[in-house]
């Protein structure tokens, strides 16, 4: 197993200095911890600098550890297409701090759905994302963020309550606001839903 870090680490440290908090090599993979404020610049630099050219976004995810004191980490996996180089960049968000990181949608279009999923499963907000809403659960899902360690395996509510909420599904929760802005569908919504939407409520399950 390779124990040496990727050569990009040294160049990153030279460029960003303190913003690179530390780096780790685990099972041959290089992991770089960046500060939340500069992580977008770090990723942009890795993508655009000739010689680095990490032009492919492999994955965005998050890790919530079992130890409640430990920080929640948001993970970006990037890759260079033209040479065998992979990199993992992480931001550790300590407990108590707001779960927000900048989006990388402006750098990679593939980040769109990946960030939506991290938001859906962990509740991490991606500042600047054009359309941050739930993707795997329905939009008005009220139980919480499933992949957090504080969320029990079978969910918070009882099965009958989960069934009731699933079957209830207000009409506007089946369409995104973007879709409702298209003509016709608005007319077909029930009157009380239209009232609610006119008042600016997105319609959460009560």
């Amino acid at each position, binding site marked *: 197993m390779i124990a040496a870090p990727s050569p990009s680490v040294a160049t990153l440290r030279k460029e960003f200095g303190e913003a690179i908090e530390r780096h780790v090599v685990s099972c041959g993979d290089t992991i770089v911890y960046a500060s939340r404020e500069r992580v977008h610049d770090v990723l942009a630099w890795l993508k655009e600098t000739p010689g680095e050219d990490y032009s492919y976004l492999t994955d965005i995810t998050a890790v919530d550890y079992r130890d409640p004191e430990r920080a929640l980490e948001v993970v970006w996996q990037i890759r260079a297409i033209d040479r065998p180089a992979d990199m993992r960049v992480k931001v550790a968000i300590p407990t108590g701090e707001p779960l927000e990181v900048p989006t990388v949608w402006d750098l990679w279009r593939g980040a769109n759905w990946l960030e939506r999923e991290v938001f859906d499963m962990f509740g991490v907000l991606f500042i600047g994302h054009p359309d941050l809403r739930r993707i795997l659960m329905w939009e008005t899902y009220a139980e919480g963020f499933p992949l957090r360690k504080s969320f029990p395996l079978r969910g918070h509510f009882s099965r009958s309550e989960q069934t009731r909420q699933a079957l209830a599904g207000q009409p506007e929760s089946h369409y995104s606001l973007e879709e409702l802005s298209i003509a016709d*569908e608005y007319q077909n919504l029930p009157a009380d839903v239209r009232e609610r939407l006119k008042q600016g409520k997105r319609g959460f399950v009560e």
Partner: protein
Amino acid sequence: MSTRTVDVALGTSGLDARGRPITVPLGVQLQDTGEFEVPGHFDEAFGAEHMLINIGPQHPATHGVLRLVLELDGETVRRCIPHIGYLHSGFEKLGEYRQYNQIVPLTDRTDYLSPMANNVCLAMAVEKLMDLQITERCTVLRVIACEMSRIISHLVWLGTTGIDLGAFTPFLWAFQERERIYDLQEAWTGARLTTSLTRVGGLMADIPDGWEAGLRDFCNTFPKTLAEIDSMFTKNSIWCGRTQGVGAINAEDAINSSLTGPMLRASGVPFDMRKDRPYLGYETYDFDVPVGEHGDIYDRYLVRMEEMRQATRILEQALARLKPGPINVDDPRVILPPKSRAMSDMEAMIFHFKQVMEGVKPPAGEAYLGIENPKGELGYYFVSDGTAKPVRWRIRPPSFLNLSALPRLCEGALLSDVIAINASVDIVMGEIDR
């Protein structure tokens, strides 16, 4: 040939300045009443309203429970908004409550069209975490499993895409070939579809007697069926008319949208995990990777057809180099000792007990492993804290990223093209929604 790169305008942002989702009211706020008036969406030139069409989630042509909401101007798609999550089963959450070997059956059910390849990816990811070297025979058998999975996955794609575009017969031919692979899978693992082939450090069982002859027979006869299907499609004017120039994406956008697998290669990017990040000894096999040029549906079809031929080629080579030997690594902390020894030898009994009761324990750390699944790069990312159950199991699904490019592929296409484009992306909802 021309390709259009379209910036997808994703509608209302729904976020306030701090990036929090806000209660966005519809339309324009009227000054006096404070209520909101909803504008209709008018096309200036013709004064016609656009239609909102819902396809799915229950629909024969969506290849699973996918829901597409289309904004149509007549027959032309202005916007396509996919909704997923209708098959979200909580795999990643479930993985945190299972020992590593207990996760193997879960992997069958994510990409259920190529189960053995997922099993292999999982075992390899945990072996990377533990820095375990598997045996020679296990390596070759895993290559055989991966290539068999590639063939059956592409056959499903071929059959269902044919149906979507109106050709029913190749579906039956493709499924008949799949049945032959299913027979081989069943003889090896006991199950047709949910194979659970691998274990950490080895396989669940060695191939039975006569199995190699069965696979050799398949390799000899499969190219003929493939040629038959090829003769039905490749030079067929209907097929060419419906697939050439449709749903194209260029190489730069394909990379930026994180497309993967045949979608990426059809757009002209010669990236294949087997060649660029080799694993399981793929660098020692003699095979070609088809790369397309235009990135349209026709190129994706050609790429997948050729991949099936190359997979047959790899299978023949793997069969030739299969030598007798152990399939499991000789490490009692990882592989269960034989039952006879566990019943007679104290040490073996203790190892057996610890493995069954506690499970395999990798050291604390994390590892990401990607392999070239039929649909693209499947990646498993494990974070371990030294216990028998992972802290985090992340499945990086290829179809998820491929499908996220669907809006930009469909924009400007006709409604029937949407079905064809959706078919060409080759999605499996089990993997997308997990």
